[in-house]
C-alpha cells in the first residue's frame, strides 16, 4: 500500500506503540505534528504574515509568451511572481482571485503545477513554492497525518499537501493523495475546489486506475462544484462500451452522488433512454450500482423513466428464477438480495403498472417471495430472505394488489409481530404502521392490539418505539380509551427518552378520539401529573382552549384542578393549568366544600414560592380574577391580594411587574373591573398545535419516502371529502372537536382518510373551514391567540424570534469577501434601501465612497425592465467593474454588458430585462465588484424585483369578493396564520403600506372596522393572471399581532404571497431607526437628492 521504505513512519508508529499512557502518546503526537508542520513550512509561510495586496498584470507584452505577473506586497517589500498559464487556468485563477484571498490563488497555482518563472523570483516566497517538498516527502508526512487522525487527534493543517498529492504523476503518491484527502476533508473544504481540474484530468484520462481513484473520491466527497463540472464526463464513462465494468459501476454511483448534490446535472430528456439501456446490463456489479442511481432518479421524477419499469421487473424475474446469476452473486443461496431490494424499491416510485403483462409477471414474482420465504436456522440466510420479503410486502402495499394478496400480507405481519426474533418483530411492527398509511386495514390490525401492547413493554427501546408508533396509528374512536389508558399507565415506567413523545401522542389521541370531553380533561391532567416535565406548553394550552369553549366542561375541569392542588407536590405545569382554570371558573364551584374564594386563593398561593417567574404572572391573573368574582367583596382577601400586588410592583421581571401594577390599579376600580376581568372569550377553532408538532418530526433521507409520496397523493382526496361535509346549521365546534361531538359523522366516509392523514401527519391540509352558511363566518371570528393570554404574554414574540424579523446580520447585503477587500464601507443602510425600493420604483440601491448604484424600474404584467445607474464618484476611474446577476429559479433575467471601466465622474447605464416565471418570494442578487486603486470591492445586493412588482392593483366589489372568497375554501388555496411580532401600525398606515405593495385595500367590505380586506392580481408566465384576496384582522389592543388570511387560485402563490406580506409586516425598517451614517464631507449628498438617482448623479457630473 505504497508504504514500503517509510522508515520514519515505522519508527513513529512503534514510538506510539511503546507509549505507556495517553499523556505520553499525546506528547509524541504533538511532537510529530510539530515536525510535520515545519516540513510544510511553505504552507506556513503562505498563511502567516500580514495582508498582501496583489496586482494582476499582463506580462505577455507582445512577446508571444503567455506570462502573467503578480505583485505581492509582503512586509513592505514588493515581489513579482510570473507564471505561465493556459487560458482555462487563467480563468480559474481569476475566479479564485475574485472570490478568495490571494493565498487561495497561490495555492491554486501550486496545486495545478502552473509553471513559475524562476529566474525572476529568486529565493523569496516563490522559491519556497517552487522548491517545495517532493511528492515522496509529502506522501510520508501525509501518511503520518492520516495515522494521527486515526488515533483521534485533530489534524487541522496540511490538507493542502494531501490534496496536492492528487496531482502526482505516479500511482503510489496519487493513491495516497486520494485516500488521505477522502479521509481528512469533506465537500465543504476550499482546497477541494482547487483540485477539480486535476481530478477531471484523471477522469477523462486513459489510465483506468486513475479513473477509479478519481471516481471514488468524487463519489465519496464530491460537492456541488464537482457536480457542475464533472457530471458530463462521468456520464460518458458510465455508458462507455470500452470501459470495464469496474469503472462503470463506480461511474454510476459517482453520478448518483453528483445528482444528489445538484439534480440539474442529469438532463432528463437524453438520460432516460440511456438509463433503460443500463438496466439491460449483464454484469451484476454495474447493475447494482445503476439501480441505486435509478432509485434516486425516479424518486424525483418517475414520469420520465417509465421505460425503466419493465426492465426492473425483468431484473426481478431474473433474480427470482435464479437465471443466469453467477455463483459469486448469490448470498447464502439467495440471488443478490440487495439487487432484489433495490429493484423493488425503484418500482415503488411508479404509481401504477399499466401493462397487464408486466403486472402479471411482477405479481408472480411477488407471490413467490411472499409464499416461499421460510424461517431458516442460518441467521444470515434468514435475514437476507426477509430483507427481500419485507421489500416485497412494501411493494404489494404500494400496488394495492388484489385483496387476496393484501390479506396475505396482513397475515404475515400478524405472524411477525408475535415472533421472538427481535429484528423480525421490529420490522413487523414497522411495516404494520406503514400499511395503515396506505390501506384500510385498521380492523384487521386491531385484532392484534393485545400483542402490540405487549411489545410496548419490550425491554428493547427500538421495539417499544415501533409499538408506540403503531398504537398511535391504529387508534380510533373505538379503541382510543384502551390505548390511551395503556399509554398513560406505561408513562410512569417509560424511559426518559420516550416520555415526551409518549405524552404528546397520548394527548393527541385523547383529543382526537375522546368519547366525552371530561375524559379528555382527565387524561391531560393525568399526563401533566405523571410526566409534567415532558408535557409541552402546547398540551396545556390546548386543554384550556377546550374548557373555555365548552361551558358544560367548566365546572368539571375546575373541580378536577382543585383536586390536584390538594396533592402535596405537584408539577409546575399543573400549577399553571390549575391556576388558570380556577381563576376563570372557580366561581362555578362556590357551593362545594373547600371551594370558597378564600380557600381557593390560599391553596393556589401556597404554590407561589415553588414556581418560576414564568408562572407568577399566571398566578397574579388568577388572584385578580378570584378577587373580581368575590361578590360581595371580601375585605380580608382583598387586603392580602393587594399586598401581594404591591410586593410585586417592584419585581425585576417586567411581565410580573406590569401585571402587578395593572391589577392593583384595576382592582381598586371596583365595578369597572368586572368588564376587564370578565371570562375569556371563546377561542376560535383551529387546528391543534400538537398535531403540527407531531408533523414537524420530519424524516431526513436521501430519497423521499415512497409511502409518503403516495400518502400525499391520497390526502388530496381526503381534502375533498372533508369539504363535502354537510353544512348542518352553524356548528360551534368543528374540526377536531367535531370528531368528539359527532363521531357518527366522521365515521362513515372520512375515517379512512382521517386515519391516513393522521398517520403520515398531513392533517394540516385538512384544516376544517366552518361549513356554515354565514357569509362572513370566519371573517367575524375574534382574534386568534394560541394559548391562554397569560402564557402568551409571558413569552413575548416567541414566533417572531424564531421566524419573524430577520436579524440584520442574516440579511446583511454586503458580504465581506476577504480580509483584503473589506476596506470600503457602504454609505447608508443597504437593507433600508432595499426595502424602500420594494415599495417604489426608483431610488438608490447602494452607495459607498467610490460608487453609487441607482435603480429605475418599469413593470408590466409578468415582465419588467430595470436600469442600473452606475455612477463613479471619484476623479479616477473604477476598473474591473463586473456585475453578475444570480437569479432565483423563478426569474429570467438578462443583463446587458457592463463596461469594465467607469471613467471618472461618469455614469453608466445598464439595463436588465426580467421575466417572472412562477410565484416565489426568492430574491435575485446582484454580485457587483470593482477595483479602486488596489482595493477589490465586492458586494452582493438584493435586487428589488420582488413578488409585489408583479402585482397589478385591482379593486373588487362585495358582489365579486364574497363568491371568490367562499370558493377558495381552504388550504392549500386559502391559508390563515396568526402573525406575531408585527411592527405596530395603525390601520391607516397599514392601508398605505398595502396600497404601496400594490394590494388594493377595499374599504367597507369587512363589517369589522379593525379588519382590512385587500385584493390584487398576480402575473407570471406559468399562471394566468391570478386574483388574490387578503384579509387582515387586527387587534386594537395589541398591534403586534394580527391574523392574516390569504387566498388565490394557486397554492404556491397563496403561500408565497402570505409569506411575502408577513415579511413586509414584520421587517420593514422603521423610520425611528438611527439615521444612516452621514456620508463623508467630500461627497455632499442632500437627503432630498437621495430619492432620485438621476438628480443625484447629474449633480455628480
Amino acid at each position, binding site marked *: 500500500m505504497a508504504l514500503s521504505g517509510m522508515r520514519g513512519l515505522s519508527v513513529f508508529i512503534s514510538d506510539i506503540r511503546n507509549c505507556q499512557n495517553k499523556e505520553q502518546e499525546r506528547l509524541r503526537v504533538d511532537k510529530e505534528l510539530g515536525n510535520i508542520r515545519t516540513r510544510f513550512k511553505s504552507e506556513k509561510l503562505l498563511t502567516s504574515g500580514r495582508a498582501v495586496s496583489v496586482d494582476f498584470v499582463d506580462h505577455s507584452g507582445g512577446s508571444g509568451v503567455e506570462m502573467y505577473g503578480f505583485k505581492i506586497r509582503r512586509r513592505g517589500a514588493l515581489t513579482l511572481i510570473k507564471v505561465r498559464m493556459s487560458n482555462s487556468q487563467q480563468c480559474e485563477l481569476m475566479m479564485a482571485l475574485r472570490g478568495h484571498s490571494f493565498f487561495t490563488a497561490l495555492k491554486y497555482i501550486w496545486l495545478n503545477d502552473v509553471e513559475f518563472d524562476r529566474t525572476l523570483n529568486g529565493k523569496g516566497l516563490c522559491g519556497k513554492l517552487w522548491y517545495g517538498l517532493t511528492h515522496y516527502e509529502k506522501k510520508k508526512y501525509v501518511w503520518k497525518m492520516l495515522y494521527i487522525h486515526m488515533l*483521534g487527534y485533530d489534524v487541522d493543517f496540511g490538507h493542502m499537501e494531501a490534496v496536492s498529492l492528487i496531482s502526482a504523476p505516479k*500511482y503510489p503518491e496519487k493513491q495516497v493523495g486520494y485516500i488521505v484527502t477522502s479521509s481528512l476533508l469533506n465537500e465543504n473544504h476550499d482546497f477541494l475546489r482547487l483540485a477539480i481540474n486535476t481530478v477531471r484530468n484523471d477522469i477523462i484520462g486513459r489510465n483506468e486506475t486513475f479513473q477509479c481513484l478519481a471516481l471514488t473520491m468524487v463519489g465519496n466527497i464530491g460537492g456541488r462544484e464537482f457536480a457542475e463540472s464533472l457530471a458530463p464526463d462521468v456520464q460518458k464513462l458510465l455508458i462507455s462500451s470500452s470501459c470495464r465494468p469496474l469503472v462503470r459501476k463506480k461511474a454510476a454511483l459517482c453520478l448518483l452522488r453528483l445528482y444528489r448534490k445538484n439534480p440539474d446535472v442529469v438532463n432528463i430528456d437524453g438520460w432516460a433512454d440511456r438509463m433503460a439501456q443500463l438496466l439491460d446490463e449483464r454484469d451484476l*456489479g454495474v447493475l447494482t450500482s445503476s439501480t441505486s442511481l435509478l432509485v434516486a432518479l425516479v424518486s424525483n421524477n418517475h414520469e420520465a423513466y417509465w421505460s425503466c419499469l419493465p426492465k426492473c421487473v425483468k431484473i426481478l424475474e431474473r433474480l427470482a428464477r435464479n437465471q443466469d446469476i453467477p455463483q459469486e452473486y448469490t448470498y447464502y443461496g439467495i440471488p443478490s*438480495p440487495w439487487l432484489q431490494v433495490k429493484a423493488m424499491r425503484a418500482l415503488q416510485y411508479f404509481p401504477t403498472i399499466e401493462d397487464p403483462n408486466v403486472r402479471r409477471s411482477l405479481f408472480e414474482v411477488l407471490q413467490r417471495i411472499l409464499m416461499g420465504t421460510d424461517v431458516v436456522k442460518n441467521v444470515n440466510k434468514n435475514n437476507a430472505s426477509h430483507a427481500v420479503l419485507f*421489500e416485497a410486502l412494501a411493494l404489494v402495499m404500494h400496488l394495492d394488489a388484489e385483496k387476496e394478496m393484501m390479506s396475505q400480507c396482513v397475515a404475515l405481519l400478524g405472524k411477525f409481530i408475535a415472533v421472538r426474533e427481535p429484528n423480525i418483530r421490529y*420490522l413487523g411492527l414497522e411495516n404494520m404502521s406503514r400499511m395503515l398509511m396506505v390501506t384500510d386495514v385498521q380492523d384487521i390490525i386491531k385484532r392484534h392490539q393485545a400483542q402490540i401492547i405487549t411489545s410496548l413493554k419490550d425491554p*428493547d427501546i*427500538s421495539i417499544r418505539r415501533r409499538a408506540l408508533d403503531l398504537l398511535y396509528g391504529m387508534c380510533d374512536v373505538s379503541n382510543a380509551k384502551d390505548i390511551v389508558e395503556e399509554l398513560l399507565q406505561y408513562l410512569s415506567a417509560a424511559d426518559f427518552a420516550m416520555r415526551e413523545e409518549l405524552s404528546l401522542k397520548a394527548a393527541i389521541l385523547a383529543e382526537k378520539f375522546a368519547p366525552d370531553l371530561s375524559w379528555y380533561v382527565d387524561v391531560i391532567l393525568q399526563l401533566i401529573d405523571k410526566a409534567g416535565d415532558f408535557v409541552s406548553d402546547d398540551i396545556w394550552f390546548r386543554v384550556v382552549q377546550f374548557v373555555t369553549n365548552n361551558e358544560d366542561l367548566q365546572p368539571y375541569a375546575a373541580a378536577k384542578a382543585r383536586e390536584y392542588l390538594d396533592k402535596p407536590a405537584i408539577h409546575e405545569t399543573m400549577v399553571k393549568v390549575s391556576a388558570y382554570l380556577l381563576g376563570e371558573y372557580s366561581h362555578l364551584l362556590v357551593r362545594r366544600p373547600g371551594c370558597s374564594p378564600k380557600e381557593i386563593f390560599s391553596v393556589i398561593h401556597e404554590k407561589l414560592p415553588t414556581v418560576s417567574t414564568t408562572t407568577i404572572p399566571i398566578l397574579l391573573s388568577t388572584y385578580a380574577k378570584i378577587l373580581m368574582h368575590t361578590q360581595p367583596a371580601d375585605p380580608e382577601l382583598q387586603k392580602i391580594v393587594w399586598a401581594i400586588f404591591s410586593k410585586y410592583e417592584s419585581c425585576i421581571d417586567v411581565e410580573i411587574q406590569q401585571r402587578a401594577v395593572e391589577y392593583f390599579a384595576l382592582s381598586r376600580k371596583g365595578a369597572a373591573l368586572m368588564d376587564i376581568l370578565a371570562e375569556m372569550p371563546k377561542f376560535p377553532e383551529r387546528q391543534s398545535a400538537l398535531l403540527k408538532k407531531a408533523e414537524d418530526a420530519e424524516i431526513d433521507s436521501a430519497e423521499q419516502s415512497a409511502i409518503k409520496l403516495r400518502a400525499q397523493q391520497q390526502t388530496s382526496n381526503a381534502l375533498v371529502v372533508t369539504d363535502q361535509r354537510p353544512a348542518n346549521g352553524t356548528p360551534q365546534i368543528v374540526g377536531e372537536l367535531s370528531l368528539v361531538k359527532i363521531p357518527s359523522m366522521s365515521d362513515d366516509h372520512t375515517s379512512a382518510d382521517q386515519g391516513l392523514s393522521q398517520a403520515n401527519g398531513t392533517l394540516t391540509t385538512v384544516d376544517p373551514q366552518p361549513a356554515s352558511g354565514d357569509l362572513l363566518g370566519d371573517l367575524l371570528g375574534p382574534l386568534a391567540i394560541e394559548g391562554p393570554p397569560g402564557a402568551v404574554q409571558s413569552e413575548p414574540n416567541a414566533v417572531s424570534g424564531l421566524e419573524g424579523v430577520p436579524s440584520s446580520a442574516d440579511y446583511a447585503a454586503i458580504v465581506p469577501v476577504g480580509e483584503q477587500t473589506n476596506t470600503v464601507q457602504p454609505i447608508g443602510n443597504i437593507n433600508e434601501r432595499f426595502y424602500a425600493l420594494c415599495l417604489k420604483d426608483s431610488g438608490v440601491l447602494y452607495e459607498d465612497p467610490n460608487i453609487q448604484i441607482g435603480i429605475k424600474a418599469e413593470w408590466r404584467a409578468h415582465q419588467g425592465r430595470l436600469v442600473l445607474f452606475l455612477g463613479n464618484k471619484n476623479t479616477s476611474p473604477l476598473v474591473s467593474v463586473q456585475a453578475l446577476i444570480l437569479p432565483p429559479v423563478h426569474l429570467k433575467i438578462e443583463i446587458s454588458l457592463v463596461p469594465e471601466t467607469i471613467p471618472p465622474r461618469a455614469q453608466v447605464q445598464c439595463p436588465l430585462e426580467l421575466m417572472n416565471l412562477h410565484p416565489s418570494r426568492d430574491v435575485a442578487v446582484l454580485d457587483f465588484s470593482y477595483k479602486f486603486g488596489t482595493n477589490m470591492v465586492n458586494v452582493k445586493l438584493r435586487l428589488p424585483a420582488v413578488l409585489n412588482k408583479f402585482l397589478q392593483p385591482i379593486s373588487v366589489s362585495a358582489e365579486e369578493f364574497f363568491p371568490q372568497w367562499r370558493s377558495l375554501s381552504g388550504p392549500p388555496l386559502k391559508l390563515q396564520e396568526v402573525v406575531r411580532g408585527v411592527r405596530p401600525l395603525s390601520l391607516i398606515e397599514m392601508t398605505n403600506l398595502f396600497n404601496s405593495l400594490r394590494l388594493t385595500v377595499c374599504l367597507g367590505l369587512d363589517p369589522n372596522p379593525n379588519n382590512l380586506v385587500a385584493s390584487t392580481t398576480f402575473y407570471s408566465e406559468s399562471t394566468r393572471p391570478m386574483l388574490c384576496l387578503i384579509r387582515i384582522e387586527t387587534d386594537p389592543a395589541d398591534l403586534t399581532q394580527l391574523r392574516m388570511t390569504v387566498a388565490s387560485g394557486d397554492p404556491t402563490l397563496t403561500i408565497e404571497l402570505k409569506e411575502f406580506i408577513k415579511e413586509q409586516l414584520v421587517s420593514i425598517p422603521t423610520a425611528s431607526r438611527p439615521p444612516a451614517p452621514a456620508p463623508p464631507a467630500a461627497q455632499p449628498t442632500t437627503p432630498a437628492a437621495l430619492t432620485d438617482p438621476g438628480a443625484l448623479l447629474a449633480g455628480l457630473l
Partner: protein
Amino acid sequence: MIRFILLQNRQGKTRLAKYYVPLEDSEKHKVEYEVHRLVVNRDPKFTNFVEFRTHKVIYRRYAGLFFALCVDITDNELAYLECIHLFVEILDHFFSNVCELDLVFNFHKINYFITSPSKGIHRPHIGSDDSPHMRTLACVYLILDEFILAGELQETSKRAIIERMGELEKLE
C-alpha cells in the same frame, strides 16, 4: 443511503470511520461517541436497529468489534444488516479473522501480533520495514471503497473485490 460507517471496539475507540455526508471533525467525534454509547450496552437479544437522531443505526457485533451503519429511516434494515456481514466476510478473507483487526489496530497489544506469525495468508505483500498498521488501515479503506461508494453498495461479489485488490497490489 448510508450516511456513515463506523468500526469501533468495546471501549469506544473508533478503528475505522467513513463518512458519506460532510461533517466537521468535532461533529464526527460527537457522532462516534454517541453511536458507541447507543450500541455498546444493548443486549445481544435486542434488535440490531437503533434510532439515532433523524436516522437509524444498523449495527452488528463481532467479538470485540462493533460495525455500525447509519442509514435513512426508510431504508431496508435487514439488507443493510447483511451488508455488514458481507463486509466482514470480505475482511475475514484478508485478515483471516476480523477480530484480528482490533488487534492490529490496538497498538498497545501489537507486540503480540508481530511476534506470533499471523494466519492472514491472503494479506498483501509486506515490505521489510513496512508498517503493518498503516498497511492494514490502507487495505481496509481500499476494500471499503470497492464495496461501498457514495453511500450505496457498489459490489456484492466477494470474488470481484478480492480480484480487484490483487490488481491494485500489482500496481505497486
